[in-house]
């Protein structure tokens, strides 16, 4: 069995209804080995996992509409958001055991993602395009490194240069990039996301919790109905509205869940105190470090030691039987002294850079506190 789900999102300006495009693609079970070659029980569970993820995106992620085509045991979901002007391709991979390797990612996942990404880019280059890999198992060491770098590229300011440099240890990474437009490749990895160790029980619990928070009774039987419906559709469009009609309830979170919390004065005081503590631990009020002074403090003991050691060794090495060792020892000491000085300069530079970040961290905290505390006061 294979699965294709298409979910189309149209701009709210063009249509009063919002449609969400999700595509679940599958592959021939004879070709894939994740669970198709295993027992009938594990295959069935793999298919169940696919439908569970589809239900998760429809219900918890609030996708408005999907188009589903079951075709194999591997699943890809396309989630397109009109108001967000973005599109997300999601591949769902169920494994009985083990971890998901980088090799498996490059052979079984990346080619499909890349094709979908390029097609989306050609259709509309202004969209944000994401590719998300969802699996019940953890990532292998190399895949974890790769995904961690992708995460940092988007969210934590990692530069593309540092991204490339940190992945030189991955044997298959150069072949991923080879022959592809560098800018397109950069954009692709920027949009790469993952959900790992997303166990069926955990997904099910999240769906059941959402349904319960909508005030809907018997969430387990409702979910069973939904999963059954996805199976029966086999190929075609499934909307969130259809799901609501099926379970005779609106999937609308209870008002209390949507309300923003109101904080008491005591809670605000605690928050302000928390900021003070963070500032005390990680910020600074000190003056800018004197790098020359730091370098001097670090290198002068080394220079003195180097001079004294070498003089002393040369004195001891005057006898011919240890002359060779004396020369070697002096060379080592000179080389070590030189390298220690190099590191001292780097340390002084880093201390200065650290100070710059610490002082700015302190300033930002002070700015937050001042802006909040002085709010509404006329000046």
């Amino acid at each position, binding site marked *: 069995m294979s699965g294709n789900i298409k979910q189309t999102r149209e701009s709210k300006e063009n249509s009063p209804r919002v449609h969400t495009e999700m595509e679940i693609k599958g592959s021939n079970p004879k070709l894939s080995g994740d669970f198709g070659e295993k027992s009938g029980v594990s295959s069935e569970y793999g298919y169940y996992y696919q439908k569970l993820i589809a239900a998760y995106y429809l219900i918890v992620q609030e996708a408005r509409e999907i188009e589903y085509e079951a075709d194999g045991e591997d699943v890809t979901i396309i989630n397109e958001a009109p108001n967000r002007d*973005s599109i997300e391709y999601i591949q769902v991979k169920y494994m009985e055991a083990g971890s998901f390797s980088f090799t498996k990612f490059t052979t079984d996942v990346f080619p499909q993602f890349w094709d979908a990404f390029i097609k989306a880019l050609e259709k509309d280059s202004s*969209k*944000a395009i994401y590719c998300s890999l969802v699996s019940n198992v953890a990532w292998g060491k190399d895949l974890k490194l790769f995904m961690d770098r992708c995460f940092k590229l988007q969210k934590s300011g990692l530069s*593309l240069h540092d991204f490339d440099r940190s992945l030189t240890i991955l044997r298959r990474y150069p072949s991923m990039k080879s022959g592809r437009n560098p800018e397109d490749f950069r954009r692709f990895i920027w949009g790469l996301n993952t959900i790992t160790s997303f166990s069926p029980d955990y997904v099910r619990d999240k769906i059941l919790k959402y349904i319960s928070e909508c005030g809907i009774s018997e969430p387990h039987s409702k979910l069973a109905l939904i999963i059954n419906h996805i199976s029966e559709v086999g190929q075609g469009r499934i909307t969130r509205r259809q799901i609501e009609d099926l379970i005779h309830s609106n999937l609308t979170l209870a008002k209390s869940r949507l309300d923003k919390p109101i904080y008491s004065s005591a809670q605000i005081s605690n928050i302000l105190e928390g900021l003070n503590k963070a500032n005390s631990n990680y910020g600074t009020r000190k003056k*800018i470090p004197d790098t020359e002074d730091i370098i001097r403090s670090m290198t002068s003991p080394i220079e003195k030691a180097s001079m004294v050691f070498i003089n002393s060794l040369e004195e001891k090495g005057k006898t011919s039987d240890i002359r060779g060792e004396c020369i070697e020892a002096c060379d080592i000491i000179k080389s070590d002294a030189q390298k220690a000085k190099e590191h001292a300069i780097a340390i002084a530079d880093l201390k200065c850079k650290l100070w710059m970040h610490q002082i700015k961290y302190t300033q930002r905290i002070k700015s937050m506190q001042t802006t909040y505390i002085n709010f509404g006061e006329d000046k």
Partner: protein
Amino acid sequence: MRFELDVSLEKPTETIDLTFLKKLFLNHKSYEVLRHKLNNYLLLQSSGEDFKIRIHEDGRIYVKIDSDIKDSSKKVLLKDMFQKLKDFLKETHLSNHHILKNEINFSFYGPTAHSVFWEKYNELNQLGDEALITYDLRTYAEDNDSIYVKLASANQMNI
């Protein structure tokens, strides 16, 4: 959508005299003083335009624009925002008294923040080429509704 450009002074211990700036812009033909928070910031409105400028005492300067117009991202040009900054720095002579840190930061806020980033990607690089020559482009995207883009260079900013 909200678009913000921010720069800061190179020396973090330097400050900007907001009281002096406020006096400069009272009854000014190009700017209106919207708010002054003592020891914090001064907020100005660019007369007849949608741009606001916020100057912090600790040396940060923000140029920002809110836009609810359909396809607003296509109408807001990042180079216009940068020009606004340059005009402001010239008007206030701030660049005569202070050196700016060699980085330009942009923030986009709104449900289409990430797609706006990619729409503006080429503009960002053009601005980086013009102002910084050699630079790294880095992103900090905490959620789908905002993204912070840093263009940072080792060279002095060309402003």
